């Protein structure tokens, strides 16, 4: 592999021709066989991320992939190619298959020469329509593997080729031949029966399933685009003392730029002049804006909520914290474990068994002295009946109904393939800010000095704070308004940057803010207020002091409040057998307080955004199957890494794009419903697969005995399909707890 002396490069290749997760594993193995190459292949995004050493060139990589039977190219996103003409194949196949199935199953429609019309209609379906399955099956054969494609290709080709044989060399081509509508079993040489409806019907059904599935594939790139969109587009750089607005790409390390109130910080840097509050929630998850002054570090993409700042750029482009987070999300999505489709896992065993059965049937009848024609009929019948038409519907119908029901309950399932792959989730990691808590500051307590009136304190403090846009001030104003109603007017309002506000209300000079602001007039905070303030801060809350006429009158406690439904949600999550873990960038005291309030015992606090991924990975390496619920940009990579990522709909676009499920209402109780729904959907898929196979497997002994007829084959097809669709529709009855 690579050494320190070897330089490496990294590219992303778009892989074509993959039909299942095992294809992705195969391409990955093939690439990793090359010296100095480390590759991860994502089936969902159809991309390979390849790190390669100097000695390897791109042509070698592409050739290696093509040698495995797939195509590779530098990615140029073309949505139409993604479906491999699937929609056209589906529409044409369905239109042609309907009359074929109808004629075969309804004897009055069997006019003279109907069988030849059937052949004309079924031929394009089996050849062109089912081409993706044949191609994939051939690729699988070359690798000695069997998937659902193998089964479909084998079944449809067996039915079609047999029908050709019967039509041209048997008696099925005789004008006026009909399929009687009866389910009696009788042994025949089979040369009078055609199975074109099986070939065309199975193809159309499986194509429909594939089409729904391909539509549901996640758009991995969207999370990255949303993340990068968060950065500032241009920046006001100070050049020769003048402000020049330039595109962000032209900013160089060491240059100074201006950040006005409400603007985003253009890139990572150090404050050179000014002081302000910066909303760092994107990066740290911390809900309280952080006061910054000269010498403090600021992060690109965060929002300046206070005064004017001049910042010296320390990192630009790919080195910034935002770009590094984008990289983390990308790595998490590309490196996500590939899980084989359940249908493919079943097929991998089922196909070899069916072939063995067919060979056994042929040999048995030959051994028993039957005619070679009869023996061959029975063997082919085994292949024909073994391909369950409903196999293609088993997963997509359950996913469609499950996602539809989810949408009604406010659960948007974005990567439904995850439902199929999610084994039993046993741990749920909850981000604190915005997930368990509202993510918004609110007034939680008012402690007044002896002799002061709470309403009066709120009336005056609220009036002064009304002039400020600071989130803490907004919380005080909301709290005051809800307690005392309309607030009186203020004169002489002044904001003291980073400290507090001052103004005159009803002839009194009122100050609200840090104790230091107050202490200009009154050096001592009364002991009761001092302890109240210390107590609030110990619990991780923010305390602001209110005073007028040179005396401290009250301490207002502001905090990010726990959502009213969070505690109930935690109880539900526990009842599902999940262990909730609270994860936050906040300090331990705040985290413990919130955890205690909602009933969580396991807390992981003071975690940087990059470390959130590590926490999820560590839990996974301990053998846990992890669901992560988050809302912030800082959660995006962890959401993508988790086995099941759930984003709050009230959160950032980045988190929503990186997750598998979005809880539209931002109510944590929906997380419990989402997990129940995903479990129920998975159970439905398994049930569907069982019954899809069961009807056909039940008919295999008849086929092996040489007793299959087209009506029985059609009945097995119809029964299993109806069952699978009905079973999936039962998911509509799923009831949410929330």
């Amino acid at each position, binding site marked *: 592999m690579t050494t320190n002396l070897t330089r490496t490069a990294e590219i992303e290749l778009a892989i074509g021709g993959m039909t299942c997760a095992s294809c992705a594993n195969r391409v990955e193995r093939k690439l990793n066989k090359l010296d100095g190459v480390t590759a991860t292949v994502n089936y969902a995004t159809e991309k390979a991320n390849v790190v390669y050493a100097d000695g390897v060139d791109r042509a070698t990589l592409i050739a290696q992939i093509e040698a495995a039977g797939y195509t590779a190219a530098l990615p140029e996103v073309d949505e139409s190619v993604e479906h491999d003409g699937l929609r056209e194949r589906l529409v044409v196949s369905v239109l042609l298959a309907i009359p074929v199935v109808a004629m075969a199953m309804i004897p009055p429609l069997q006019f*003279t020469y109907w069988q030849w019309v059937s052949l004309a209609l079924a031929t394009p379906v089996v050849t062109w329509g089912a081409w993706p399955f044949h191609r994939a099956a051939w690729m699988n054969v*070359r*690798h*000695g593997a069997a998937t659902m494609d193998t089964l479909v290709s084998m079944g449809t080709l067996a039915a079609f080729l047999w029908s050709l044989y019967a039509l041209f060399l048997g*008696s*099925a081509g*005789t*004008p*006026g*031949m*009909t*399929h*009687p509508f009866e389910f*009696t*079993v*009788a*042994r*025949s*040489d*089979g*040369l*009078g*029966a055609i199975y074109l409806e099986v070939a065309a019907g199975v193809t159309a059904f499986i194509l429909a399933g594939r089409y729904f599935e391909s539509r549901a594939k996640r758009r991995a790139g969207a999370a990255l685009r949303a993340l990068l969109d968060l950065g500032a587009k241009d920046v006001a750089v100070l050049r020769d003392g003048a402000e020049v607005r330039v595109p962000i790409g032209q900013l160089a390390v060491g240059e100074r730029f201006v950040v006005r109130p409400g603007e985003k910080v253009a890139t990572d840097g150090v404050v050179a002049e000014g002081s302000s509050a910066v909303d760092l929630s994107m990066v740290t998850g911390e809900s309280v804006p952080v006061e910054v002054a000269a010498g403090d570090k600021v992060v690109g993409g965060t929002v300046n909520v206070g005064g004017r700042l001049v910042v010296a750029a320390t990192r630009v482009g790919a080195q910034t914290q935002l770009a590094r987070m984008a990289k983390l999300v990308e790595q998490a999505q590309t490196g996500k474990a590939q899980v084989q489709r359940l249908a493919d896992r079943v097929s991998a065993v089922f196909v*070899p068994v069916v*072939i*063995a059965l067919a*060979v*056994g*049937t*042929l*040999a*048995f*009848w*030959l*051994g*028993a*002295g*039957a*005619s070679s024609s*009869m023996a061959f009929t029975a063997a082919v019948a085994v292949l024909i009946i073994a391909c369950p038409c409903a196999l293609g519907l088993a997963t997509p119908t359950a996913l469609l109904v499950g996602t539809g029901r989810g949408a009604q309950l406010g659960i948007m399932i974005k990567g439904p393939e995850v439902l199929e792959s999610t084994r039993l989730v046993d741990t749920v990691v909850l981000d604190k800010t915005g997930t368990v808590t509202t993510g918004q500051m609110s007034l939680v307590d008012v402690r007044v000095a002896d002799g002061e009136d709470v309403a009066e304190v709120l009336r005056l403090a609220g009036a002064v704070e009304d002039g400020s846009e600071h989130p803490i001030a907004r919380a005080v104003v909301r709290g005051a308004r809800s307690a005392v109603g309309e607030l009186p007017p203020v004169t002489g309002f002044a904001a003291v940057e980073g400290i507090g506000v001052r103004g005159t209300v009803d002839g009194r000079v009122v100050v609200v803010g840090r104790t230091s602001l107050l202490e200009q007039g009154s050096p001592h905070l009364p002991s009761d207020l001092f302890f109240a303030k210390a107590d609030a801060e110990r619990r991780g809350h923010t305390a602001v002091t209110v005073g007028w006429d040179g005396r401290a009158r009250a301490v207002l406690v502001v905090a990010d409040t726990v959502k009213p439904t969070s505690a109930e949600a935690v109880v539900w999550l526990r009842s599902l057998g999940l262990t909730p873990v609270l994860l936050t960038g906040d300090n331990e005291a705040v985290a413990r307080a919130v955890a205690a309030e909602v009933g969580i015992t396991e807390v992981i606090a003071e975690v940087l955004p990059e470390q959130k991924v590590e926490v999820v990975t560590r839990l996974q390496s301990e053998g846990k199957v992890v669901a992560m619920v988050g809302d912030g940009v800082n959660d995006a990579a962890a959401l993508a890494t988790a086995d099941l990522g759930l984003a709050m709909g009230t959160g950032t676009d980045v988190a929503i794009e990186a997750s598998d499920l979005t809880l539209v209402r931002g109510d944590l109780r929906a997380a419990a419903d989402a997990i129940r729904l995903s479990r129920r959907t998975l159970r439905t898929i398994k049930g569907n697969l069982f019954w899809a196979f069961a009807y056909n497997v039940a008919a295999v002994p008849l086929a092996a005995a*040489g*007793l299959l*007829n*087209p009506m029985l084959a059609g009945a097995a097809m119809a029964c299993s399909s109806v069952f699978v669709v009905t079973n999936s529709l039962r998911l509509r009855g799923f009831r949410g707890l929330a």
Partner: protein
Amino acid sequence: MSTASRIGAYGVVLVLVAAGAFALGSAVGPFDAPAPAGETHQVDAGHVESK
């Protein structure tokens, strides 16, 4: 296990299955095949010739 040896092993299994089935068929046969299973159906009971 390489692809070739996997396919080879499966081939061996198929041959064994075929041999076993053939032997079983020889032991329990011969059957009157093709033979009518219903009362009125002819050899090719899966379909009916035109009038």
